[in-house]
């Protein structure tokens, strides 16, 4: 993170209106001001925009590759939903999400969440932040919410870019679900939105983990690397059938369950398990981040 970058982002924070002293209102409006500043800090950063740009390019890349290979036979190998993509551009959304979810999305989320506290600490802006009478709990909550918004933004970027690329490269029309039923395009797009929402929520546990890691260190790079490394490690562990006993409790275990929304009727069991698991991770690592952040000495 460059200093110029940060100081630019810090200007609006410093200019935020002072928080009124009243407890209830002050808490809410103070939080909102913090949250807005946090959002600005995340999304104004060049790094964030580059990451979102990469996420936008990914579906286009997949679409072009699939388009070029439309005629070659496929026998069920390759990324999920790839067989349907050639028939219908809408499925490029699901293929792109299936490709992005294991690696790209967690990587970007790890970068943003991991940097949230540690980056400020490294740049020396954290103590100035804490001078503002907002309180550490609220600051942490604002950073967590901003992280969630980034998850949603990343997912939406992939979805919209895939939809656009799919519409250009492939025919749009009735969508064949993976249970073999056919639904109209009008019914398919809300499903795509639902899928995007589920994917974004699937990343919430990772935001909490990244935030916790971020409170442990004063180096932004270390926090980002640790978070992304953790994602990769856990996914590798999730691949071992020998670890069956613990696999259902690993946070990426149910990530790909969003495909169950593309059945008729939708099959919710695994998605609910996924969301419950994410809630548990948010509770544990969120409280761990809180415990660490509110009791540590901020010297930088």
């Amino acid at each position: 993170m460059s200093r110029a970058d940060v100081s630019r982002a810090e200007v609006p924070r410093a200019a935020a209106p002072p928080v009124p002293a009243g407890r209830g209102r002050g808490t809410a409006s103070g939080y909102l001001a913090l949250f807005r500043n946090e959002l600005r800090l995340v999304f104004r950063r060049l790094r964030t925009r580059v990451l979102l740009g990469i996420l936008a390019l990914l579906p286009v890349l997949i679409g072009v590759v699939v388009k070029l290979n439309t005629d070659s036979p496929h026998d069920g190998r390759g990324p999920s939903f790839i067989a349907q993509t050639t028939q219908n551009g809408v499925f490029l959304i699901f293929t792109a999400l299936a490709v992005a979810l294991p690696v790209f999305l967690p990587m970007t989320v790890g970068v943003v969440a991991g940097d949230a506290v540690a980056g400020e600490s490294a740049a020396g802006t954290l103590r100035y932040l804490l001078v503002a009478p907002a309180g550490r709990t609220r600051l942490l909550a604002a950073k967590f919410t901003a992280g969630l918004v980034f998850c949603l933004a990343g997912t939406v970027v992939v979805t919209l870019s895939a939809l656009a690329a799919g519409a250009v490269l492939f025919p749009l029309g009735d969508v064949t679900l993976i249970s073999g039923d056919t639904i109209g395009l009008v019914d398919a797009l809300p499903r795509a939105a639902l899928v995007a929402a589920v994917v974004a929520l699937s990343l919430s546990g990772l935001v909490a983990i990244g935030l916790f890691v971020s409170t442990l260190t004063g180096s932004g790079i270390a926090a980002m690397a640790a978070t992304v490394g953790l994602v990769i490690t856990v996914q590798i562990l999730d691949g071992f059938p020998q670890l069956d006993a613990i696999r259902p409790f690993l946070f990426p275990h149910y990530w790909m369950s969003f495909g169950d929304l593309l059945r008729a009727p939708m099959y919710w069991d695994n998605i609910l398990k996924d969301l419950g698991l994410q809630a548990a991770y948010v509770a544990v690592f969120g409280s761990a981040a809180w415990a660490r952040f509110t009791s540590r000495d901020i010297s930088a």
Partner: protein
Amino acid sequence: MTNDTAVAADAESGGVPYRSRRRMLVRAGVPIAVAAAIATGIGLVPALAADSPPDLPSLTAEQVVAKALGSDAQSLSGTVSVATDLGLPTALLGAAGGLGAASGHGGGSSASADPQAKLLDLLGGDRTVRVAVDGPDRQRVELLEDSAGYTVVHNGDQAWAWESATNSAEHFTGQPGRPGEHGEHGGLPKAPAAPLAGAPTTPQEAAQQFLSASAGSTTVSVAGTARVAGHDAYQLSVKPTQSGSTLGEVRIAVAADNGVPLAVVVKTTGGSTVLDVHFTEVSFAKPDAKTFDFTAPKGAKVTEHAAGAEPKGAAKGDGAKGAEAKGDGAKGAGAEGHGSEVNRPQVIGEGWTAVVTTKLPGGAEAPQGEGKGKHQAKPFNPQTLAKSLGKPVDGGTLISTKVVNVLLTDDGRVFAGAVTLPVLQHAAGVN
């Protein structure tokens, strides 16, 4: 920042710059407490959900069996969990799957929604299946795979099998049965897993298979009650009276109100569970009629299966034709197809200790992988494969799993069954 009012009001967020160690420890306790609470919740919820067995009027075994066989429930829909743990060597499963695919449609290069390859799929691991039944003429079975689906729909004289991963469908017309059943009968006679290739996909099928196949050699008793998918059920315990079987007990949960089998659990004599099929959710209401409507999805590759054709012959013919057409080393697969027609498997003995026997096709050349399809990458020679998997015993090679034991004699005969080695050796006339 210490004397700021907001911070003072929001004391827990800690405005004090220097904290005692004690406070840090207290705070660190919070996430640990949260984690402990969640872990307790995860541990407790199933324990609380598994309520005590329901009180039902006691019935004799005959009454429960009659209830099951006489069940007039015509329609149901629900979700079935199928867990199999046969202890098969994974290499064997892979080879069997490859063989199935090869004899089914001449090599892995032609993707299709072949029901018979899917049945083998059920042999490994945990699967979730959604079923809907409306009388004998209309059924729908949907195998929920990771980000993919496999659906079999039977409606009157039409039957469809659809596989999303390959975007392909098979269309059967004029056949009253379900394609899945044809898959079972026309299954893989020589694949060591053949006796279990018809892994039942619904508790009904499973229970009825066991109940009808086991008269005479079996003791049936009622082992209490249970709750399955929210329904009260009697637990029927079925045990072999003959010795020599590897199967120890089959437990069937029969719904108390309408006699529909809701769960089947198969245990070996060693006590480990090899098959657990049960409804996780079931409704006996008539399924929506459009559940059974199926039309080929736009753009899907559809394979038509003509009316009246004997399904087994059709499948084999396909295999031979495919092998010729490809001419790419799938000759072995073609030979397999012919060989199995010559050496029809025979059954020795009956009941629990039945042994299936057949002869290995002579000179079944391994299709040397030419990189054409993943299934041909591995050369398939039954003898070599068996030797590498099995262990030498008197009279041949034994491939042993939790349930099925397979004996390959040195002169190329195969004996398979859910029986112990001495029974196989006796059937083979080794001692």
